[in-house]
């Protein structure tokens, strides 16, 4: 009888270890620290093992493990560095209020618009590190691990609409940061981007206000 239980436990442990790389990859991006990521993953799997009876067979083991890990992360790092804090802002934001930097709404595409194709993997990692934790986690669950909105909602215990809104805002922030990197690294030149257009519009308006011809 004990043997059977032990076999079942070992099978469960082996099934969990299948997701080790994914859990570690996400933990590494969440904590931005290798040692902490190892600790987080280890604690997640030890906890999951301890509470394996609570896992409902037939449901998604991967999502269940991520849920444990994200909860542990939120508890452990709640009082730590600012970048990890769960920052609350208005969830219902006009999704059109923050247009993409660099994007030009014209039929004449400029290569500089696609600045994000010039940045490096390190730039993306750095930009993700700077995101508030609540945004970072949705991006990692969606873009690194391919979870659906419903699964992310389940993992984070938030409504699907909130997932959608956080993901949108997270990507907008990511895009803004990458745009700044692209500028500072010289991947793009300011004179040929959408942002410059906005600056010129400001100049135009101030010149108008001053009564001078644009």
């Amino acid at each position, binding site marked *: 009888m004990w043997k059977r239980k032990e076999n079942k436990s070992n099978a469960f442990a082996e099934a*969990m270890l299948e997701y080790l790389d994914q859990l570690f990859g996400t933990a590494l991006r969440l904590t931005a620290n290798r040692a902490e990521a190892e600790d987080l993953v280890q604690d997640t799997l030890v906890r999951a*093992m301890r509470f394996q009876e609570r896992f409902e067979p037939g449901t998604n083991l991967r999502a269940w493990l991520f849920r444990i890990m994200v909860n542990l992360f939120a508890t452990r790092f709640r009082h730590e560095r600012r970048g990890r804090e769960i920052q609350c802002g208005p969830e219902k934001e006009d999704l059109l209020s923050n247009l993409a930097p660099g994007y030009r709404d014209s039929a004449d595409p400029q290569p500089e618009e696609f600045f994000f194709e010039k940045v490096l993997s390190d730039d993306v990692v750095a930009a993700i590190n700077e995101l508030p934790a609540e945004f970072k986690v949705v991006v990692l669950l969606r873009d690194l691990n391919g979870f659906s909105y419903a699964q992310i909602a389940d993992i984070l215990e938030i409504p699907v609409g909130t997932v959608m809104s956080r993901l949108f805002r997270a990507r907008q922030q990511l895009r803004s940061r990458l745009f700044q990197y692209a500028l500072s690294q010289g991947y793009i030149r300011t004179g040929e981007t959408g942002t410059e257009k906005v600056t010129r519009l400001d100049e135009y308006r101030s010149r108008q206000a001053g009564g001078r011809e644009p």
Partner: protein
Amino acid sequence: MRCEDVRRFAQVYLDGEFDENDRRSLELHLRECPQCRRQVEYEHRFQAAIRARLPRVQAPEELRQRLHSKLLHPGRVHPVRRILLWSSVPAAGVLVLLLSLTWTVTSAFSPRLLEEAVERHSRQAPVEVASENRADVEEWFRSKVDFHVALPPFADREFRVVGARLSHLAERQAAQVRYRQAGREYSLFVFNDPGGPLDLQRCHRLGHRKLCLVEKRGYTVVVWRSRGLAYSLVGDLPASQMLEVLNALFSP
């Protein structure tokens, strides 16, 4: 579907979260509207760029092996429990025995706790606060752990603090303080005294302190208690030399 809707939900569409009707309606709109087509293509290229640049990392082999042995061969508790469960000892007795066994394994200075101290020291994780000042390091921990990190006033001035980080040993919060002396690195772990007996391989008296030492994986762990806290110093010297270091540190 209007242009505004396409802009609002382009990401949702690209994430494959639209139902069949919405998808068809959006795609019909795209066929007619070059501006929205551009918008969706832009979003698509952005998402693809991010996904392609997010590094897929592999878990370290050492972590994989550690977890493998931890989860698949979780120690010697099971066979003991099995014998107890199937013996004719009355249930209450079994419970008391089990509780005391569990207490020994998880509450006291368990092998796991000492093993984790060695592991965390040997990993050389970066410090979160770099300072040579003992008071600054104590202050740094003030809001981070639920005990007062009182660092011992070591007598040897060459045994210098270099920094500290938050850690944990056997699921207990621990302050890990790194020291350096004569080119060697040491980690001092400070944590709430877990209680229970302190009887390791060798124990010695240094003044009023009882120091116990154990050698693991080429490292020596020294453990002592003071004012409700437990201290565990890890270094790569053999036990006899570690004892000499401690002697100098605690000399009056």
